[in-house]
């Protein structure tokens, strides 16, 4: 029922996501709720997440696109801007959201965040501390976690 009056914008975005997906990113709406997307992001090359396949969920709230989509990681990930529950610290998901942004741009930003962790604006205090005090070791842990939890299935 929720799907019957889905805004044209969401339909168009969905069609485009399916027909011309961004590299390393796939997003497909759930069958029973067109506002709920199953997302996969490949770990970017030359990042500690390389080789990993990360599952996320993305939900478009009623106010979308006036309000930002809600996104979180389902796959465990060792990253200073992502917490235990998979919540993501990213400005465009909060105060920097603009209705001219899209699902595609959001997911691309998240992919970029994997390439460039920002321990100065941490969500997970411990991981950020680790990152700042011993980056090499933290990167090792991130690789380890990628191998353990994101090695695709």
């Amino acid at each position, binding site marked *: 029922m929720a799907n019957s009056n889905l*805004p*044209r*914008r969401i339909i168009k975005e969905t069609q485009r996501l399916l027909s011309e997906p961004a590299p390393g990113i796939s997003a497909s709406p759930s069958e029973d709720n067109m506002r709920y997307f199953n997302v996969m992001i490949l770990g970017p090359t030359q990042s500690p997440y390389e080789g990993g396949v990360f599952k996320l969920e993305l939900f478009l709230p009623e106010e979308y*696109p*006036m309000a930002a989509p809600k996104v979180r990681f389902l796959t465990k990930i060792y990253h200073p801007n992502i917490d235990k529950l998979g919540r993501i610290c990213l400005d465009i998901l909060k105060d920097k959201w603009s*209705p*001219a942004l899209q699902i595609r741009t959001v997911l691309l930003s998240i992919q970029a965040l994997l390439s460039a962790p920002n321990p100065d604006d941490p969500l997970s205090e411990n991981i950020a501390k680790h990152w700042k005090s011993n980056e090499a070791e933290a990167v090792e842990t991130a690789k380890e976690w990628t191998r353990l939890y994101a090695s695709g299935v």
Partner: protein
Amino acid sequence: MDSDAILSSSEDMHDANDVESDEEGFYSDENEVASDYNTDDDDVDDYVIEEDEDGINMIQARRPENNYIVLKELDIKERQEDDITSVSSVLSISRAASTILLRYYNWNVSEVHEAWFADEEKVRKTVGLLPGTVVQFAKPRELMCGICFEAFPRSRLKSADCGHPFCFECWEGYIRTSINDGPGCLMLRCPDPSCGAAVGQDMINIFACDDDRCKYSKYLLRSFVEDNKKTKWCPAPGCEHAVNYVGDNENYDVSCLCSYDFCWNCTEETHRPVDCNTVRLWILKNSAESENMNWILANSKPCPKCKRPIEKNQGCMHMTCSPACKFEFCWLCLGAWSDHGERTGGFYACNRYEAAKQEGVYDEAERRREMAKNSLERYTHYYERWASNQLSRQKALVDLHQMQTVNMEKLSEIQCQPESQLKFLSDAWQQIVECRRVLKWTYAYGYYLTEHENAKKQFFEYLQGEAESGLERLHQCAEKELLPFLNADGPSREFIEFHTKLAGLTAVTKSYFENLVRALENHLSDVGCHQAGSLATSSKNGTSKGKGGRGKETSRAGGSSRN
């Protein structure tokens, strides 16, 4: 004979200080009082020496000499409009644009001008006022809205100065969301994430519904007060006035039109003679958890096993901690109860404790508890007096109101005098209210006087004692001695004497408190020369060298000998 004595001392005090205080005019309450009564006859107070000057002050009292201006909502709007108009005409930009600029520069007109003429391009870039359209389109008949991705004819699309087109419906949604998110809507930018073009009130007025337009204006008004370094809202509950401070950072006492007096600097209630920092400390202290801690420390011991604090309120020394701990111990030595018995001196005494106490083993903990207890008692002493003066003041405010609304009229009938002749009554009550306020804060002052300032402390307590008894006298007279006249059947000659006495007391108390405030503000430093005259007069019955307590007694003795 009564009033003779009082009058003479009143004149002493006036000679010493009163002229100054009127010239400085820094005591806002004076102006407040004055302006309230500027239509009244002035010839009532024979005792006030500077009658004429007062008269002049009364007429001018409405603000020009004041440190501040109270602004009603309309005044705020008017000032805001004026500033917007001025910037808009000087810089030749739209009103919406000049509003955006002013908001960015905290409504400081000269700062806007300065920044603009220094580097217009840079300013335009930071606030989002683009010099012209950045997006140029070839001219297709239809364009796509950047939000809903629908195609629209140009006439159904609108853009900010940048030219990024969005359809009407999406603009409405964008603006509605932003306004309902709060005052951040005042800094709204074009929805295109790469574009920083400002979206101003002109766009808001096109696309927002009436409610939201109203909200936006409210935010704008609030911003004008809150972002402006020289204005603050009156903190009184429900009051919608703002106060614009134009003074020289010396006296921050302001009095709002709603009759709430507050310190503009810290927005707490007026607190002379103590400074803002002391007030902050005191308020913090009053609410501080530390006082609870002190109490726990002084009145409880931790269970030796689980360390929970235990208050012993009755019973024997055999303690059993509450479940789940259930540890049984001796209150005196804090040892396990199982070690107690006949060999420690019977079940209900503890020889170990007695012996150890004599050897001094328990002194440390005991001393700590003792200290905490003392400091708590000291604080309580000051707090109680502070709070009771606060209560007293509130009661006096009620009485003042009663006087102004009911009793003056009643008395005027009974005593066959015009109400203008009874102004001395509300003057007295107004003075009582003010004195209670000052007295209240002297207790915070006293609390923060350190132990080693002993001489100062004694002198302070003496002054405080004098102030207190002086005020009591005035309060007593205004409250009790008035009663017979209120209940009388007709005019009585004694009423004239009462008038003389009360007005005299009001004047004496007023100048005494003014001196007190000044002395405390100077931290009792120049007390020797400045205050010598007036304080010597009031303390001639006793040497002021005694302890605070004795000082008080002396002053009471002085008071009663006069009555």
